[in-house]
């Protein structure tokens, strides 16, 4: 579904991503782990062009999304994103947060958008909150709404940028459970995370990044039990 070839990204003179090559298959759950500043988030943000790659190519279903005249809007309709800090629209209630983009971008009728939104709120366990404003929700609830908001666009691929890093510890599980449900439902996911337990349990494949490069890429069982590289080994020693 996604193919990444020779992806480079620099901010000014600082190179943050160096020659990334990988792919994401349909229905696959990919987790990206690594130390802070290793370029994980930047890589994820390149996939939906929140960051413009400096060079290299990213293909979505065979279409080069990095060419100059690529249809960014079309890409973003197919790729949903969940942020570390939720970024819900604070001046809209939960239901409007979910329906605004489908109605504006896809021209979905209000009734239809609302019924889809209610289904999604039920799925993330927040049916009773549809009239609430984001400021009245807990962190975990906000993130679940944010996930539902991204799903309301019915994307083919969901990107998660450290979805639990800004949460109180007791709220991490409720958010991870929602993501797990998505994984089991066959959705294609790419998750940047520090939750090693989650990576181990849910991922089909793990990418370990350090200093802007993909250092190791394998299945979670192998990666967590017997990492091939010294750097991955020393990282795991510190976090596990």
């Amino acid at each position: 579904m996604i193919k990444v070839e020779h992806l480079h990204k620099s901010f000014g003179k600082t190179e943050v991503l160096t020659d990334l090559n990988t792919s994401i298959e349909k229905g696959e759950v990919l987790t990206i782990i690594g130390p802070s500043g290793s370029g994980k988030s930047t890589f994820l943000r390149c996939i939906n062009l929140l960051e413009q790659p400096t060079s290299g190519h990213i293909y979505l279903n065979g279409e080069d999304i990095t060419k100059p005249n690529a249809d960014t809007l079309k890409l973003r309709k197919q790729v949903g994103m969940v942020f570390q800090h939720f970024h819900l629209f604070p001046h809209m209630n939960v239901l409007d947060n979910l329906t605004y983009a489908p109605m504006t971008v896809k021209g979905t009728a209000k009734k239809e958008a609302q019924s889809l939104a209610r289904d999604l709120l039920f799925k993330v366990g927040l049916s009773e909150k549809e009239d609430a404003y984001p400021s009245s929700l807990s962190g975990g609830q906000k993130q679940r709404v944010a996930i539902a908001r991204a799903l309301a666009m019915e994307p083919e691929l969901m990107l998660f940028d450290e979805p639990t890093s800004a949460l109180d510890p007791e709220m991490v599980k409720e958010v991870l459970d929602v993501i797990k449900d998505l994984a089991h439902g066959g959705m294609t996911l790419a998750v940047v995370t520090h939750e090693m337990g989650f990576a181990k349990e849910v991922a089909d494949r793990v990418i370990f990044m350090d200093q802007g490069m993909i250092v190791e890429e394998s299945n979670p069982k192998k990666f967590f039990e017997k990492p091939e590289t010294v750097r991955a080994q020393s990282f795991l020693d510190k976090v596990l």
Partner: protein
Amino acid sequence: MNLDFTQIVPYIPFMLEGIWVTLQFVIIAIIFGFILGSIIALVKIGKFPILRFLADAYTSIFRGTPLILQLMLIYYAVPQLTGYDISPFLSAILTFGLNSSAYVSEIIRAGIQAVDKGQKEAAEALGIPYRPMMFKIILPQAMKNILPALMNEFITLTKESALVSVISYLDLMRRAQVVGSDIYRNFEPLMFVGLIYYCLVMILTLIGKYVEKRLRTSD
């Protein structure tokens, strides 16, 4: 103490007429300044470096020189340059509108940029195009930062409007001077229009407070 307010009584209608004269050009200048200021603000956060530079230069010039100089330049220098005999009314609107737009553009720019960057990213990630993102996501949130400062700017403009008396525009201030030289007493007419200015500003302040309160309840 030599005070006699009864002497200004015959002149009261003349001075009260000044309220409308002042308000007339203040309101037009505020609207003109607001529209132009909004456009300049959008240019400042826009994509075109040349336009951005021009907008910054414009703001810098209008904020960096005395208002009375701008007023005199427009009233006295425009006829010299173009031969067009500009009226005090038009000069006043132009000067105050242009000057105010420089301040308003900064207020709006700062208000928009104070909105969390994540809001723009979230909207972009959902594929929401620039216009609806600006008008439905960013600006409604920016309003909370913008409105109080904007009210302040309108209050300042109302008070500074007294400057137009120097180009002999018959506003409130000028009328007080006229009355003063007519009856050889300055304290009473000046006090009288001073009170009127104060009332005008208080009304604006109350409106500002009311608007702020309305905004807060939407939280």
